[in-house]
């Protein structure tokens, strides 16, 4: 019996790990989305955190917690720089600009081999203890929960629903969005270093369009109006290929797409929808 549990754990621990890493990226996207900004920038913030973390593991003896902190801060610094330039754009142009940023990130990573290892990327001889990953995710989710209940959470919701109303309520939308970008940057940077340690290597392809799609799909799938939605969505999106491989190995990608499509058509507001939950509670 113990053997079965152990074997299951050995088989699926890495899937769980990637689900948690993707949860960081999804949360980073949720952070901006909950303040009314659709941004794929977390990929770039992740690259900043990932490559800095990789270099710190390779060239210093700094303990892991400090590396995580540094990666988060690197992501936050990049995100605030980006925010200062991007936030004057209207929301849809902001989304496109952040997509352009992702494309540029890869070119920059490819062409700065001294910092990033260039095409070959960097190998990282340091496994990521899953308890660290899980612990940090719990803390991060806790922080999102607290933020959701705080003054900032209310203000962010107001900005998301209607910027002009928010302004009338005495909220400065730009300030809220700047804070949202900062949070996104920190969490994205953390996600980046987690991804790097989970893969034990980083390359230009580690932080590219597919991560952008994974995280946005995670958020929307899980529910973009609930602080736990991104975590759930990232878990579902990460587990899908594994599940499909077990049942229809030949057609797994088609199965992934179909599952994603069905969820979106029948639950367009995601798996966790606070509005539906409130309605259900009211009906009781």
């Amino acid at each position: 019996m113990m053997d079965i549990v152990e074997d299951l754990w050995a088989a699926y621990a890495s899937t769980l790990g990637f689900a948690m890493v993707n949860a960081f990226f999804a949360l980073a996207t949720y952070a901006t989305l909950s303040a009314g900004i659709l941004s794929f920038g977390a990929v770039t913030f992740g690259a900043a955190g990932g490559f800095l973390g990789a270099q710190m593991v390779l060239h210093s003896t700094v303990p892991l917690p400090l590396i995580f902190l540094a990666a988060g801060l690197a992501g936050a610094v990049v995100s605030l720089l980006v925010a200062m330039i991007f936030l004057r754009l209207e929301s849809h142009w902001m989304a496109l600009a952040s997509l352009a940023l992702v494309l540029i990130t890869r070119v920059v990573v490819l062409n700065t081999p001294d910092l990033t290892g260039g095409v070959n990327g960097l190998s990282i001889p340091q496994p990521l203890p899953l308890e660290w990953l899980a612990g940090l995710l719990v803390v991060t989710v806790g922080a999102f929960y607290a933020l959701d209940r705080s003054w900032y959470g209310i203000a962010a919701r107001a900005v998301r629903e209607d910027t002009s109303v928010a302004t009338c309520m005495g909220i400065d939308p730009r300030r809220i969005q700047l804070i949202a970008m900062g949070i996104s940057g920190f969490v994205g940077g953390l996600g980046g270093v987690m991804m790097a340690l989970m893969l034990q290597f980083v390359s230009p392809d580690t932080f590219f369009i597919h991560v952008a799609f994974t995280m946005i799909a995670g958020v929307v799938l899980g529910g973009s109006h609930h602080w736990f939605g991104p975590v759930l969505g990232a878990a579902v999106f990460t587990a899908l290929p594994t599940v499909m491989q077990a049942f229809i190995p030949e057609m797994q990608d088609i199965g992934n797409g179909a599952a994603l499509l069905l969820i979106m058509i029948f639950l367009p507001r995601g798996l966790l929808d606070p509005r539906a939950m409130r309605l259900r509670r009211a009906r009781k």
Partner: protein
Amino acid sequence: MELFFAQLLNGCALGALYGLFGIGFGLVFATMGILNAAQGAYASWAAIVAMYAIDLLGLPFPVAVLVGILAGGMVAVLVDQIGFEPLRRFGPGLHQAAMLGALITSIAFWIMLESAAGFATGQQSLAFPPGSYPAAVFHAGPMMLPAMQAITLAGLVVVGGGMHWINTRTRFGAAMRAVGWDPVAAGLGGVNARVIVIATAFLSGGISGFAGILSGISTANVSASLGQGLMLKGFAAVVVGGYDDIRGTAIAGLALGVLEVFCAQYLSSSWRDGFAYALLLGFLMLRPRGLFGSAGFTRA
């Protein structure tokens, strides 16, 4: 100097593909506010179908191209009606939840269509059979113009001009814009919104599909990933050109193609894509309304 003009021509031919694909991409983006991740798959599928139409059915080249374009359009209608239509109940235009939902369903279709295209090509990179398409080369002194480059450039002029005319001079164009603006109001104004949406999706898929077919022939590469390369540059062309400005998209596409070729020839091929994307970002920051800046982006 000879090399300069030869590369200028190569750049224009490459850019014409970006422009063509971008016109199809921009059509859906402008009228429906959908950032369609599956657009590249239309190009792949059109090329695959056109190739098999020649290879297996033995159809003549122009007919096969038409069949491919039809296939691209039909795939686009399928994606629109299954993936986007159910989300339109959210309300008009670019409601954020609907836009996000459409992005995700388009990602879902992208995954499925690309995977299915992999099966259709046996996971290989195939090509149109040699000799099945015009392969003549026109010479003018030291300059040379392969027939496929000429067809691509002509294709951009015809499709771009045609779409510009439809958009600005016909009732259909006005209806397309009206539906994009507000389907409910357009419906009240006597426009059958659903028909217009389907027609727009078909045009969009057909045009991007045409770009896919031309690209598949001139690069001797018909594979599941054909659309991806067009997708990123086509996206850049749309944004630089102004998302609902067909002239702008065509010119931006040409400019991106020329920029790409000249960067590789005279500067550095590893930074080549960086220049294109930096240009894209620069336009977003400085001229978010595109090259000609005529289009106002007022829906939010």
